Each structure stands twice: as C-alpha cells, then as structure tokens.
C-alpha cells in the first residue's frame, strides 16, 4: 500500500511528459519562425530540451523506482553507506561537461542576435561587421503603443543622428512595422516614458526599451506576409495569422494593449511602392491635396 506513493509520482511525471508530447500537435508550441537567426535559436532550444528531458526522465524514474523498491519492510534494514567518491565525481563531471557544451553553444547565436563582434579565441567564428543594414526604422514605445518612424531613404546619411532627432520627411506610423523579405532591418528602439519591451514572437526577438537610451536591434525576415496592391492602395495579407508585436515588460495597466503588427513585403520594390504612397498619404493628411497626390489617387474619398 505504501508503495503506491511511487505510482503517484510516476503518474504525475508521466503526464508532464505527455503534455509536452501532445503540445505541438495541439498548436501549443513555438510560433512559426520567420527570422534568419530563428532556426539557430530553435535548434538551441531543442538541444536544451533534449538534455533536460533526458535528466528529467533519469532522475524522476530513479526517484519513483527507489520509492517503490525501498519501501520499509519488516526485518529489512537500510544499508549504511557514507558516500562514494567515484560516484560524486561522475555526477559532477558529466553534468559539468554537458552544461559547458550548452553554454558555449549559445555564444555564436547570441553574438549574431546582439551585434557582438567576436574574435576567434573561442570555437566561434562570427563577425558582426557583416551586418550592413538595408533599412533603418525608429521605434518609440510609449504608454501604450509603438510609434514607428521610417526614413525617406532606407539608409539615412547619419543613422544615429537620424534615430535621435528624426527628419521632416519621415513616415510616421503607429503599431505597424514594415520591411521586406531578406532585408536586414536595423531598429533604433526608444521609449519616452517607462521601460517597454519590443517582442516579436515570430522573429524570436525581444529587447527592452530603456528610458534615456537608444537600443540597437536588428532582424532579417526570411518570409513575406503581405502584398501591396497599387491599384486599390491597400495591403493584402498573404496568410491568415498575423505576425504580432507585443510588449514584454510591465509598463502600466494597459501593458497588454501594446499590440502591433509586422508586415513583410515580398521585395524591396514592393516596400518602396508602399512607402511612396504612404508618405504621400501622410502629407495629404497634414496639408491640402496637391496635383501629385490627386494624380496618384490618394486621398480621394472612395
């Protein structure tokens, strides 16, 4: 009867494994990856999942088995054992080796995500200098929305000065992040009030916006999800579930409302067509229509 306790432990841990087994099939898993470095992040996740899963199974099975096997019995006395040096060494060295491997395996991907240049003194050959961005965007967090600012030329003459001060010709949007497939996008992340965190689950991207600082962020989408229709001047989404932007650092009561969307155009030309029309639309919004805007068919009430 007492042995049944081991079954409770085994059952609970088996159902934990079961939940992990059915979760991907139920759609309770990592969102679809669209980042150039996303596959690396996911691979590292699976490496850790396998390593921890292995130790989970080993330790929990041992616990349940020992609980079953060594339940107190009449006339059976416990063994008097005071440690074993070899065993201690084994279960120190093996986890140590695995953990050091896990640790060092992270470094190249982390460097890639965070713009770090690394010399080759580790088993690492990553050079951050390769990151020449194709597009600069400033993202400003505030309670409770994201404000995006796009430069008239994809790469401003002095990107950092532009990120700080802006330009009269910039395109301003709220909660909408536009880029094109395979573009290396450099985000200048700012906040005007509290700490926000710029989170794009599909891009495996997260970075806090820190008051008083401009944080560098970059990503490269490898898939497109939107097509700009030049006739209707509208965006046509290519798949049903949007790629969303969220805030991941508590920023007040409406923290959950900082929802944005990522639009990835199919090509640079598509993006530039959309941009040209959008900047015209913005000018029209701020001043009376011109021949130019009317000719482009923007601002005409449908």
């Amino acid at each position, binding site marked *: 009867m*007492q042995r049944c306790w081991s079954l*409770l432990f085994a059952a*609970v*841990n088996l159902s*934990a494994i079961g939940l*992990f087994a059915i979760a991907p099939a*139920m759609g*309770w*898993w990592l*969102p679809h990856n669209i980042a150039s470095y996303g596959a690396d*992040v996911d691979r*590292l*996740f699976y490496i850790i*999942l396998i*390593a921890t899963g292995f130790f*989970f199974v080993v*330790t*929990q099975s*041992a*616990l349940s088995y020992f609980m079953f096997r*060594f339940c*107190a*019995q009449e006339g*059976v*006395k416990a*063994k*008097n*054992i*005071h*440690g*074993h040096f070899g065993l201690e060494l084994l*279960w*120190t060295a093996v*986890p140590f080796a695995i*953990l*050091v491997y*896990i*640790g060092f395996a*992270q470094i190249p*991907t*982390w460097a890639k*995500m*965070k713009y770090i240049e690394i010399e080759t003194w580790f088993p690492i050959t990553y050079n951050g200098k390769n990151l020449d961005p194709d597009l600069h965007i400033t993202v400003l967090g505030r309670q409770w929305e994201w404000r995006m600012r796009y430069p008239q030329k994809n790469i401003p003459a002095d990107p950092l000065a532009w990120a700080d001060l802006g330009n009269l010709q910039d395109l301003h949007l709220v909660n909408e992040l536009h880029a094109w497939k395979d573009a290396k996008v450099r985000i200048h992340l700012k906040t*005007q*009030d*509290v*700490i926000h*965190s710029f989170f794009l689950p599909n891009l*495996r991207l997260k970075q*806090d916006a*820190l*008051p*008083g*600082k401009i944080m560098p962020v970059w990503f490269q989408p490898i898939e497109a999800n939107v097509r700009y229709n030049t006739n209707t001047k509208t965006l046509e989404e290519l798949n049903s579930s949007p790629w*969303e932007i969220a805030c*991941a650092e508590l920023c*007040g*009561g*409406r923290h*959950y409302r900082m929802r944005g969307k990522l639009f990835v155009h199919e090509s640079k030309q598509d993006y530039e067509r959309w941009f040209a029309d959008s900047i015209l639309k913005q000018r029209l919004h701020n001043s009376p229509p011109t021949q130019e805007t009317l000719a482009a068919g923007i601002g005409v009430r449908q």
Partner: protein
Amino acid sequence: MNHNSEPGHEVKLNFFTKYVFSQDHKMIGIQFLFSGLIFFGIGGLLALMVRLQLAWPDGNIPYLGKWFPVSWGGKMSPEFYTMLFTMHASIMIFFVIIPWLTGAFGNFVIPLMIGAGDMAFPKLNMLSYWVMWPAFITIMASFFVDGGAASSGWTAYPTLSNVGADAGIQKTELKSNDIKSNEPNSTYSIFKEDSFNSPSSPGAGMGQIFWLVSLFLVGIGSMMGSVNYITTILNMRAPGMTLLRMPLTVWSLFITAILQALALPVLTVALMLQLLDKLIATTFFLPPGGLSFGNWHTSPGGGQPLLWQHLFWFYSHPAVYIMILPAMGVVSDIISTFSRKPMFGYKPMVFSMSAIAALGFIVWGHHMFQSGMDPRLGTGFMLATILIAVPSAIKTFNWLATLWGSSIHYTTAMLNALGFVSMFVIGGLSGIFMAATPVDVYFHDTYFIVAHIHYVLFMSSIFGIFAGITYWFPKMFGRLMNETIGKTHFALTFIFGNLTFFPMHILGIGGHPRRYYDPTIYQYLENLQPLNQFMTITAFLLGLTQLLFVFNIFYSVWFGPKAGKNPWNSNTLEWDTPSPPPHGNFLSTPIVSRGPYEYAIEGNLDHLTQSSPPLEDIK
C-alpha cells in the same frame, strides 16, 4: 552569558512576555509561522483573482462573476489586475516564504539543533520579529490608499515605479500637439500635481511608497535575524558540535544568513534611493533626458533606470537561494531520518550549498539579458548561471543516492520532502532554458518564467516548508499532526499544483507574455486560452486544498496525539529534549560525539543520536 542559556533556569513569564513580546527563540519561530500562515492565505487569494482574470478576461466568470461589485461592471480593471500580481508576488516572497524559512525554521531549529539555550541576542531576535509588524500594517494599509496598492510588479522597475508628481510639470501648451490619443491621464482622473500620485500608473503613487517602506522594514528585520543566526551558529554550539557535525538544516540556514547579511544591505539601499526619488524628487533612477507621459514632463534627471535593476537583482538573485537553500537543508534531514539511512554525501552537500551561494552572487545579470545591459556581459553571466546547475545536480543525485538501499517510511513529512526533490528537478532544469542567452531572448518575461518560479518557490520551497512544519510540529506543540489529513493534503497539492503550474511551461513556449490583463486580443495566443481556463480551475482546487493544511495545524495543536521526546527516532539534538522544550531548551547541556546521520548502524542499533555517548562506551 545571558540568563536564557542557563539550562533549567526558572523564568517567570506572564501572558505578554510568553506569547507576545517573547525573547524565547521557539516562541518567535512560532510567531513567524503563524503570521506567515495569514499572509499565505492573503497571497493565495490574490493569486486566485489573477487566475480568474486570465481565464475569463471578458468578465464572464462562471458562478463567481455576479459577486463582483456592480461598480466594477462585473470585471476588474487593468490597473487592479496589475496590483493583484504585484502584491501576490511581494507578499508571497517577503511575507511568506522568507519569513517561514528563515524566520520560523531559522529561529525555532537553530538553537535546538546546535544544542544552545537560545539565540545569541534574544532581544535583537524579538526585535527582528516585531519590526515585521509595522511592515505587515504598512503592506495591508497600502491596499486602501489613494490609487491602490503597488502595481509596478514585485521587481518595481523604474521608471514605471519611481516617477512622482513633484518630479515634473504639466505643459499645457503641448496639448495642441499630436499627442492626443491614448493619454495616460485620461484613464487616471485623480492625478494631481501636488500629491504623491504618479503619472505612470495609479499604484505607482502612494501605494508604491507604502510598498517601499514595508519592504525596507522587512529588510531590517531580516538583517537582524541573519546577524543573530551567524553569531549563534559560530559561537553557541554545544561541546563536540563541530561545524562538520552540524545537521544540513543548520548548514543551509547558516549559508542563507550569510547571503542575507551580504545581499540585503544592497536592496535596503536601493529601496531607500527609490523612496527618495518618490518623496523628494531625487533622480537616481531618472535618465538625463527626462520623460514625458502624454503632456506631462519630468525635469531632466541625472540617473539611470538600469541602476535599479542591477541593485535589485544583486539582492534578489541571492534571495532566490535564500528562498530555496533552507528548504534543501530541511529536506535533507527529513529524507535521512525517514529513509533510516545516512545522508549519502554529507560533505558534497555542504560544499554544493556553499557553491550555490557563492555563484549566486555573480549571476544577477541573467535577469537582465534583454534589459539593455551590454550584451557582452550576458555571456559571462550565462556561463556562471549555467554552472549553478552543477551543484544543484550534485544535491539531487545525493538525495537519490540516499534513497537507494534505504528503508523508506512514508510519513507526511517524508512525502512532502520527496515531493520537493521531484519538483526541484523540474524547477532546476527549466532554469537552464533561461540561462541560455539566445533562448532567453524568447522566453524572457513569458509564462515559462512564471512556470519556473512557481516550480522553485511553490512546488519546491513550499513543499519543503510543509515537510518542515509537519516534522517539527511535535517539537513545537508537543503533539503530532494528523497523518491522514496530512497525506491527503500532500497528494492533492502534488496533483493540483502540477496541473496548475506545469501547463505554464507550454504557455511560455507558445510565447504567452506574463502580466497580461487580457491575452485574448493577440491572435497568436488564441488557442492557448483553454489551457488558461484549465489552470484557473485547478488553481482554485489547489487553493481549497490548502484549507486542509490550516485545519490540520489548528486541529492538531489541541487534539493531536501527544508526541514523546523523539517521535521520529531522529538523531539530531532537538529530539533530545522534551516536546515542547522548556525555557532554556536543554535540561543539561548536550555533549555531541558524532555527526547527525548515524542510521542503520551495524548490529542491533537502528540509530545513534548525536548526544548519545561514543559507541565503545555503549558496548
């Protein structure tokens, strides 16, 4: 030598000096136990309200919805929700787990286990409890102040938390600017410039000030306690009780006290800096450029919001070990006792606890990988963090090896201790995901973290606490706790706890951010919502189950079967004196002649208590 340590000394006590302003470490421990129990209930209720909102964010809560005040429109406001999880975490960490582990266990068992008559400083000990009362009152009063209780998260990150009304001005001429939509002030009509209100959120006003004051007091109390524990353990051990003969519980509390003594001053200073930011408009955590909330602007600051995070985590990461190491010690003692077998590796256990504590001081940056800290630092913090898994693994394998070839007696205390081991494995392994920097980019501030912290703090520390309370209850009150209720409570807590917290891992993998009032507005979180509802139902069952534990305590204090001196046939010194022990603890000072885990001795002996004479003399 103080009067208390004289064995058998008659002390005249009235009701107040015995039960209220007691200088007896045993009574102070029991006081910590019961005040912790009250806050465990309050913190639990706050958690259940958080769960209600997460499961039914639109307010259509089955059965319970109609009980919400009409003025709330049948649902809670987002600001109220942020207050709920902030206060849940603050209360559970600072008023339940730390006081239970270091206050209740630390006070009750340290002198008894090392064979001392009392603590080194009984008056300081009394003060360390009574400084908690202003903290209790402040934290409870904060629920009723203007703007409600603190709502900036238990981490209280500036600039959400530290901006006060007097730090800036409202610029009316800016009103014509493009800042029209979504004005923060529109959701917060009581904002006044000449008050302590904050433009960032209602709870960041008076509530935050009360929160800071309350934690400041808790910190002072804990520092007094830790100095007392260190002095007592170093100076007041019974003859023969060498450091390497101390039970692992005492070792864990000793290491914890050192952690507290070194880390708490940093938090206390940080709290004071934030309090100054709020009260006299200093700018320790305000950036030079100032901030603007809608059309309200702070004056330029000269500080750094990131400074708070470094100071806070420099305390709060060691605090994670403060909240788990004593439970590890307690569990080690209980496992050895009820498996009737010596602890497999006593010295590796001591060294691994020390290693966890030492490494614990150089890993705080792993909470800040995405904070804007230089990412190159992230790599160093990652490697140090990952290494902490090594001593944790050593401990787990030693517990398992202790069970091998043992003779396990399934008492309630033992079951809770085994529950600790099983759950600590989950909480420990899930930590590796967050230690790995690229993977943490994704998991940071998602439900994966919530799962991890609850596996470590609820499923591990609380099981350790349940185990410890059941184990020492006979020593505290002279009566045994009811085993049937105890085992039922364990089984249900184990089942419902896992059903509540394990699916949180899956939510985290799905990318569900924490601290969200309404996750359903995100399309990518839509199909996770059934899990949220499931977890809420099991959380309520988990909450109800805890009533069994409370009932068991009060029932057993009066009606439990009388316990003898040593109901568990245990070896350590506290079982060598009557239950409950008299004032001064021991009738005669015990003399220690061996380590604490002499079970399964050769011959007919089952166990040898630490104070029984050397084996040759018995033969």
